[in-house]
């Protein structure tokens, strides 16, 4: 890294914005009018902050991330500006989004290529994987985890300490208070595992056979309901040569139970 002070001067920063001394902005960062960038913020090259964006705390933002008007990143619930927030590359943070910062031990983390749509709230210490799409007004509770390629629909409310498995699809206007298995499609109150997220799996290049196998297993295991068939789970676990993806679903459920997680099945 070059001298941070030089960098701040070279970036395209609107005269109507405030970038505190100590903030480290790469050469080509664009900061629109009425933005506020705190003194411990680090912004990598290619990032665009449109107007009226507030970024505070110990926040690091990866390359090519675009932050739209009225978004706020890096504050904590107690109002101090010492939280940690790590945002990866090529994310789009849309209008009116709030991303709260986590602690030093457990920062708020966003991976690569996520799309966080209008009005979402991401609480402290949340971990979001890669290529996730959170639709409008999604709320992620504190310490929750959203794994790779998840699609969450509008108004979905994720409670605290809940894990949404990779490639899952969550329907709109629902409250999620238990962990969601990988590859699943979830709908209803209380959330019910309706089946496999076939559309997303196909788009992500899963084989026909794998999808068929997952569908069959999900039908037996959850039967479209909110209960898990223990007998089927035990049978699947005992099987050798189990499909890798099915094995992942079974192992995740078992691990979450052993760890005594709040949302375990």
């Amino acid at each position, binding site marked *: 890294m070059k001298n941070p002070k030089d960098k701040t001067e070279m970036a395209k920063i609107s005269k109507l914005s405030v970038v505190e001394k100590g903030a480290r902005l790469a050469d080509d960062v664009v900061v629109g009018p009425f933005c506020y960038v705190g003194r411990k913020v680090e912004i990598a090259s290619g990032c665009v902050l449109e107007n009226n964006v507030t970024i505070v705390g110990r926040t690091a933002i990866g390359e090519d991330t675009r932050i739209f008007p*009225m978004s706020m990143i890096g504050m904590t619930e107690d109002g101090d500006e010492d939280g940690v927030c790590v945002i990866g590359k090529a994310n789009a943070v849309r*209008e009116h989004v709030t991303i709260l910062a986590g602690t030093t031990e457990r920062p708020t983390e966003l991976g690569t290529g996520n799309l966080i749509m209008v009005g979402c709230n991401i609480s402290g210490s949340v971990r979001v994987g890669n290529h996730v799409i959170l639709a409008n007004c999604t709320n992620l509770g504190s310490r929750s985890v959203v794994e790779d390629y998840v699609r969450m629909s509008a108004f979905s409310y994720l409670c605290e300490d809940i894990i949404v498995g990779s490639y899952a699809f969550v329907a709109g206007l629902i409250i999620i208070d238990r962990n969601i298995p990988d590859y699943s499609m979830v709908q209803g109150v209380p959330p019910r595992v309706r089946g496999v997220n076939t559309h997303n799996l196909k788009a992500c290049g899963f084989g026909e056979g794998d999808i068929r196998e997952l569908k069959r297993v999900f039908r037996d295991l959850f039967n479209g309901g909110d209960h898990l068939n223990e007998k089927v789970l035990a049978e699947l676990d005992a099987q050798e040569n189990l499909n890798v993806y099915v094995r992942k679903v079974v192992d995740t459920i078992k691990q979450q139970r052993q760890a005594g997680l709040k949302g375990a099945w």
Partner: protein
Amino acid sequence: MAVKVEIIREVHPSARIASDVKIGSFSVIGPDVTLGPGTVIGRNVTIAGNTTIGSGNFIDDGSVLGVVPQDLKYRGSPALLIIGHNNRIGRRVTMHIGTEPGGFVTRVGDNNVFREGSHMAHDCFVDDGAVIGRSVQLAGHILVQNGAVLEDMVGVHHFVTIGRYARISSMTPVRRDVPPYTVFGGGNEEAPSVRGVNEDGIKTAGLAEDETADLRRALGELFEDEAALQTKIEQLVNMGVEGEVAYLCEFCQQSLQGKFGRYREVYRGLIPPEAAAVLPPEKLSELERILKIK
């Protein structure tokens, strides 16, 4: 002693703004924006993109209008957002410009009310006199017809049509077309459906007395048992219908034919007639060129 308040805002010099427009502090107006006379803009408002706003509109604090759509099929062309006259746009409202395959334009008519935090996505059409409640999220390609009322926190699926003077109860997930003059509602436990006749809507529509009576009768017959909707429509049409009843029958027929009960699914990848009607000719030819290249 009066406190002198300095207004700081960034208005691009090439924006076309009528002389009596009021713009609050910390608002940003982009280069291709047109603001009609009598429009009042609050604080922290962003108006970007190729946005045309008519006269007498009130845009409250924190709204963001004319930003690029969230749709992944958007390819970066300067699509349009057109807002009519005398609309009240509440705090934190977001409206996006259109996408190329969706028709290139998002349009709001006249005399609409958008309450706090509502969102209108790409390629939506809101006609006149509609009320969009708090935090209502309209997905893409939606048509909201005259006088429809969406209560708070309604989420609408893309390609849905909401009929004239329909009313949607709060927190309803709308996944299919909402017939005109009805009250539509229901939660996650049971599928949302028509719950009755929207008496307020019929009153607001200002129809003639005999037409109102006909409309009430038709609504009662059609939605008594929704499973038999198709036969009921045929019966009504065979008896001969006109005016609003004819519109109601046509609407229900189109919805039944549409994929998943959404008539506008037929416009996937096509320019919808509403867009073709409002697009200026040079934009229409530009759009056709873009779609051909694809």
